[in-house]
């Protein structure tokens, strides 16, 4: 996930900000500081609203695009049980998408508009879903690492100042923890299996480790827009804090599996109680964000095709509803 969106600039904000009275802004901040939830009909600064729309829609888009890398193994899942579990997980993600689009709509933007922004490339989704799933072990790695990183990000969002988003996150987090355990279980079975299966698991960790760390977004030094989000209590912890927490939790799990984290600089620091880890390849992160990841084009092409292929179906449903309404009116 998905707080990567917080670090994008909102270019139109200053103009609107100028129209907001200082006393209004102060009263709003006082509510935030008092840990009150902001609800859909409450007054809110335009920049707060824009930031939330950007973040919530990006989160929703991530859920929808995130169905693709996992869907890639649905037809080839190795057992019927695994197939059913994976399908249920992907269905959960579609449900999260729907839920989040609804949360976005409470801020006055339509789902059609959010979807149009995704399809036009204006809105982003999490960079992680631009990596390919090459073996069955990748499905385990996505559950364990990607959902694991998402949970780190999302648990604080359950306390986000915007009510509809925070409530959506409570339910989503419950399902994500379940997904993470399922992913870990896939890898556990592989690691207890044949030499080839264990190699499959190690290869998946090698490929997914660094992109998972990138999910937390740029380092705090580079993350210029986090401060305002922290003040508004949309965001509760910095990117680096969350990333560190993720590494601290995940490395012992890799040890348990008997897998090696692909970082020669990884070392436990007894003094701080944290793992020190190597430098992230930020150039790769930037490339993927800019559309040059291994699967950006493929993911968007598939989403656009699904949308375009469905146009006649949506038109039919609308035409039928129109005919029915006319019949009832007559």
């Amino acid at each position: 996930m998905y707080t990567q969106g917080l670090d994008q600039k909102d270019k139109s904000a200053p103009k609107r900000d100028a129209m907001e009275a200082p006393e209004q802004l102060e009263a709003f901040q006082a509510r935030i500081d008092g840990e009150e939830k902001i609800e859909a009909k409450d007054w809110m600064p335009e920049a707060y609203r824009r930031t939330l729309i950007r973040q919530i829609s990006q989160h929703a888009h991530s859920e929808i695009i995130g169905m693709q890398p996992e869907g890639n193994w649905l037809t080839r899942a190795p057992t019927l049980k695994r197939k059913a579990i994976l399908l249920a997980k992907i269905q959960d993600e579609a449900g999260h998408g729907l839920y989040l689009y609804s949360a976005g709509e409470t801020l006055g933007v339509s789902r059609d508009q959010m979807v149009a922004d995704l399809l036009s490339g204006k809105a982003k989704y999490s960079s992680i879903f631009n990596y390919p799933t090459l073996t069955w072990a990748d499905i385990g790695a996505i559950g364990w690492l990607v959902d694991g990183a998402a949970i780190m990000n999302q648990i604080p969002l359950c306390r986000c100042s915007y009510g509809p988003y925070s409530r959506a996150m409570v339910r989503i987090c419950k399902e994500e923890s379940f997904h993470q355990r399922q992913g870990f279980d896939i890898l556990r079975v592989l690691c207890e299996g044949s030499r080839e299966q264990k190699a499959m698991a190690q290869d998946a960790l090698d490929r997914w480790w660094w992109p998972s760390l990138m999910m937390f977004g740029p380092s705090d030094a580079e993350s210029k827009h986090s401060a305002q989000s922290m003040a508004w209590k949309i965001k509760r912890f910095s990117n680096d804090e969350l990333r560190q927490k993720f590494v601290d939790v995940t490395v012992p799990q890799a040890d348990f599996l008997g897998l090696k984290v692909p970082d020669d600089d990884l070392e436990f620091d007894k003094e701080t109680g944290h793992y020190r880890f190597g430098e992230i390849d930020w150039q790769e992160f930037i490339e993927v964000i800019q559309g040059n990841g291994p699967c950006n084009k493929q993911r968007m092409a598939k989403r656009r095709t699904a949308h375009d292929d469905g146009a006649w179906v949506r038109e039919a449903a609308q035409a039928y509803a129109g005919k029915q309404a006319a019949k009832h009116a007559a």
Partner: protein
Amino acid sequence: MNKDKALLAYTLRLGDNALVLGQRMVELVAAYPELEEELANANFALDYLGQARMFYTYAGELEGKGRGEDDFAFLRDENEYRNFLLLEQPNGHFGDSIAKLVLYESFYLLQLEALVNCADTRIAEIAARAQKEIRYHLRHNSQWLIRLGDGTDESHSKAQGSVDDLWRYTGELFAPDEVDNVFEAEFDGPDLFKIQDEWRSNVAAVLEEATLTKPEDGFMASGGKEGRHTEYFGYMIAEMQYLQRAYPGAEW
């Protein structure tokens, strides 16, 4: 054919039908025209996978050779599958999927309703659960066929094309063979002629509301129940079985 053999063969067919249709629906994940339909498709596919697992597990127990659900799904060859040809046809467009589901589920629901009262307790129990699921599917999918048929000119012509193309695979649903006959006689199983009559009138009603024309009963393709499949099927199960075939004996 003795009673036990017929029961095993009948149970396996039910499992094969559920799995093959479920697998086709799984192919459509992340490609649906609306998010709500994405959820419905995944939900329905999960129902079919669940039914396949129950039927296969029972088949394994009946056979008594230690085979389980995954042995039946992943380690049988194409010609050992006994599903209807209708269910293995490629997905095509949304109208094809919906037409296929309406034609099949109109049959399957009647089959399950009859099985609820059959003499084999296990089959009756699974059918009792499955009929609730399929009743809901059929309602949902029929509504879609009606919307498509009575929607725009384009959707009408697409839906009519789908029904026309798939009609030739519906004859097999009602053509009893030895397994059906023994199962009907020994276990008070479904009477396919009776089901066919009801199916005709139910499907005709949906088509009429959808402003679609019921195709003429011409040549009917068959072979699925004997293990003679269409070319599409081999690719479908090759993809599905890949990991189990590539790593024999591995646990997943």
